[in-house]
């Protein structure tokens, strides 16, 4: 059984041009585990990690949004009120 399982993977690795919609599953294990022992879904986050990643993502989004607003306002300030007084 072990030999049958490993055959398709070995064939797959020898063909670098083959398109694969799930490259992570077929790629060599970065931690050097023997074939067949690598987790199929890659790194699995715990619930706590998932929650904290989400809070970090929200914080980054808020900061980026605030920067956009700041840059817009500073641009208007630097252009000055005269920007509205121009021929149409």
């Amino acid at each position, binding site marked *: 059984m072990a030999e049958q399982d490993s055959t398709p993977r070995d064939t797959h690795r020898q063909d670098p041009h083959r398109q694969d919609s799930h490259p992570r599953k077929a790629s060599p294990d970065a931690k050097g585990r023997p074939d067949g022992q690598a987790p199929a879904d890659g790194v699995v986050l715990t619930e706590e990690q998932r929650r904290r990643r989400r809070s*970090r993502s929200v914080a980054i989004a808020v900061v980026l949004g605030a920067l956009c607003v700041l840059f817009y306002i500073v641009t208007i300030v630097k252009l000055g009120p005269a920007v509205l007084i121009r021929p149409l």
Partner: protein
Amino acid sequence: MTDVASRDYDLTAAEERPLDGPSYASVSDYVALLKPRVMSLVVFTALVGILRAPGEVHPVIAFTALLCIAIGAGASGALNMWWDADIDAVMSRTKRRPVPAGRVTPGEALAFGMTLSVGSVLVLGLLVNVLSAALLAFTIFFYAVIYTMWLKRSTPQNIVIGGAAGAFPPMVGWAAASGGIGLESVILFLIIFFWTPPHFWALSLYKADDYARAGVPMLPVVSGPDETRRQILLYTLLLVPLAMSPWFLGMAGLAYGVVSGVTGAMMLALAVKVYRLREGAPAIKACKQLFGFSILYLFTLFAVLLVEALHVPSWLSGLGI
């Protein structure tokens, strides 16, 4: 540079977590990397620099400058925590910081600090002016490289020279508002510069064991508590007249002169108390009093300068104040 990956962090103080796996860092951990309490003092002194600078500055530009100075100060704090994680882990005051506690990896702290450093300097340069951006870049470099990486572990004069980093914010604020560097901004710089040694040495006198355990050559560890007490007194004797100099030089009003005189006398009295009381609980209490009051002293000086910059009541103006 030290290989951070090989550093031996003490994870026993907090939750043990792998340093190379997915991040456990929360938003509050990243906020802690910015050293918010230090940042608040930086923001306050920079605001005084902005408001006392000659000329008019648009409130939005002033806010942008203040934001960049705050972020730049926070970034240097993050770089400091990245570099000092090994000694932070063995000191009671700092062992719960995000990196030594294992909640933020050293790489995350480094990336966070570098990103904010570059970002704050770029935005300040593009939206405010180049001089203030250059000063901010130098401040971050001075704190992260000159103080943290070099002086802190090599000389007992670490906080004397490194104190310059904390003294730059009002000068950066002044440059952001006026585009130049005036005499008053230099005086504001000097006040914070000479305030830093008595402030930190008062702390290090009752935290000397911590610094010794971490191998940081603070003055009490290298030269002993008696020499530290002498140095605290000498620096305070220089600080008090320097803090009154804005009034002597006509840059501040009588209110500032009175407040700086009274609080300076109290600061000096506490420094003398630290110098005289050398044994037991009263000595430690005196150090804590000086440390606590020194923060209030600096805050009060800058608060009066801020109030005078914002508004001088007409009845005071009528009196020539």
